[in-house]
């Protein structure tokens, strides 16, 4: 096999998604005038910046053979922590650091519990998702914290390169993750946790450190997404990020990362987030009822997973 064909074969799912993306873009640009404007591209990037950040974290967690159902709750609680700190007079930078620290800590707690108890991550994070969401509700009594300082809004919503700052942040997250995930020990060990944790342990690597760190990263990224959402909406609320972890999981799986872990595709995740954003945007532009959005998302997810599975089976037998 030529190197090019091999490269393509290994990335068949992302490439397939890319093809769907391009097809959809072509269709939308023919059908509507407003689609192929720079403004609309910026719209799509802006609306999906925090989704991309969450999905990147989720990709690492899934590659490590786990899952995090508490990401949306972490997002909400860390944003509420920052908002409360600012209400109490804390400077903006401190509030942002606090949000990131809270997110990291909550994620680390997930990882620690999973490492110590060896109970399935699905169960543990289901539990902590209620726990963290409950903390948000208790802290706010269900009432959104609004009217946040301008400095905070500028950080998460300000103009950077003519776009909302979230876009730049999401790109930075991807750029930083590439070396960590693909070219450093951290990524090798995180994926080994998904592939064969026993092998990793027998190689003399402390698995707990990587289990905790991957969940802590997810928590920190959820907090960053929470900062962006809160700055955009100018309101920190207990319901923020509800079900957002599901969107993230959907994008990661659609992007070709297997739920059983062992490997992950950052490229596929990025393309899948973009594709899902494109669908939302296209439906809005075409004025199609949001009823169809979930249907289409589900159908696409099933197709992507089926394609990946069939390819894998073909390889095994062929």
């Amino acid at each position, binding site marked *: 096999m030529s190197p090019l064909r091999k490269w393509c074969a290994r990335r068949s799912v992302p490439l397939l998604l890319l093809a769907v993306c391009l097809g959809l873009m072509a269709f939308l640009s023919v059908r509507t005038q407003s689609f192929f404007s720079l403004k609309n591209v910026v719209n799509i990037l802006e609306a999906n910046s925090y989704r991309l950040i969450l999905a990147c974290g989720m990709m690492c967690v899934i590659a490590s053979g786990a899952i995090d159902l508490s990401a949306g709750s972490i997002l909400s609680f860390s944003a509420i922590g920052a908002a409360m700190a600012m209400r109490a007079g804390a400077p903006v930078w401190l509030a942002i650091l606090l949000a990131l620290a809270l997110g990291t800590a909550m994620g680390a707690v997930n990882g620690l519990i999973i490492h110590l108890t060896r109970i399935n991550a699905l169960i543990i994070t289901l539990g902590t998702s209620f726990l963290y969401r409950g903390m948000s509700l208790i802290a706010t009594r269900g009432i959104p914290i609004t009217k946040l300082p301008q400095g905070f809004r500028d950080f998460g919503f300000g103009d950077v390169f003519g776009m909302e700052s979230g876009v730049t942040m999401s790109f930075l997250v991807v750029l930083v993750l590439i070396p960590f995930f693909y070219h450093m020990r951290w990524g090798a060990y995180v994926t080994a946790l998904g592939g064969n944790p026993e*092998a990793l342990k027998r190689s*003399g690597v402390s698995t707990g450190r990587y289990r905790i760190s991957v969940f802590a990263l997810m928590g920190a990224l959820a907090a960053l997404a929470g900062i962006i959402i809160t700055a955009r909406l100018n309101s920190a609320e207990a319901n923020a990020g509800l079900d957002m972890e599901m969107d993230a999981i959907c994008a990661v799986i659609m992007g070709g990362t297997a739920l059983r872990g062992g490997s992950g595709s950052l490229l596929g995740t990025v393309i899948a987030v973009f594709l899902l954003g494109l669908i939302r945007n296209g439906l809005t532009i075409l004025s199609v009822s949001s009823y169809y959005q979930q249907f289409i998302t589900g159908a696409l997810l099933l197709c992507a997973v089926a394609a990946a599975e069939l390819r894998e089976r073909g390889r095994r037998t062929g």
Partner: protein
Amino acid sequence: MGETILSVKGIAKRFGHIQALRDATLEVARGSITALVGDNGSGKSTLIQILSGNLLPDRGEIQVGEACCHGLTIRRAMALGIRTVYQDLALDDCKTSVENIFLGSELTRGPFLDRRAMAREARRLLEEIHVEIPDLTEPVGRLSGGQRQGLAIARALRRPGELLLLDEPTAAMGIQESHSTLRLLAGLRDRGMTLLIISHNLHQVFALADYIYVLRAGRVLTGTATGDTTVDALQEQILRREREEDRL
């Protein structure tokens, strides 16, 4: 018998109601192939788990070279130069051959993985032990049993040290692959390595090992030089369990 590299004294291990090991005592001479034979449930695997640092014994003593201790952790065992090839091989099927060989001991340049150097080194290692894997960048899940065994051995050889533990190296392998694996092991001895092999295949053991220990019901019964015994005599010792148990 040459200089002793590993000596195990009175190791005992209990899991709940089951006494897996009662009194395991054996010695391994430098540069030799020592085999540990026994039926299923005789405690072979427990002993390997203890020697590789995966389990702590309840009692007993392990001496490796100059160092003497009661139990080992995985890291400590590695530091003492004990390298283990597990029965399940402990390979990550999602990773490539190169990545598996270097799992836990990656070559790096600064903070980054040095993939090129690792690929070069992996190719050299595999060539040295005559294991043929055409594409080192394919996930190992698709390789044959012999190739996977070769990879696991190559990974063990990557680590410093001269004592190699092998747990059932030819289990679930075809005849041809078994033979090449055995040749590979003999080749390692010729290069000065010390091997401790666990197996239940007496014929293979007989062809390969210099010393043979029989393990029965958690006890090491005898240690004999291969030349001083026969397959039938060993068989007899292993199978006498039932009667002996009755008497006990």
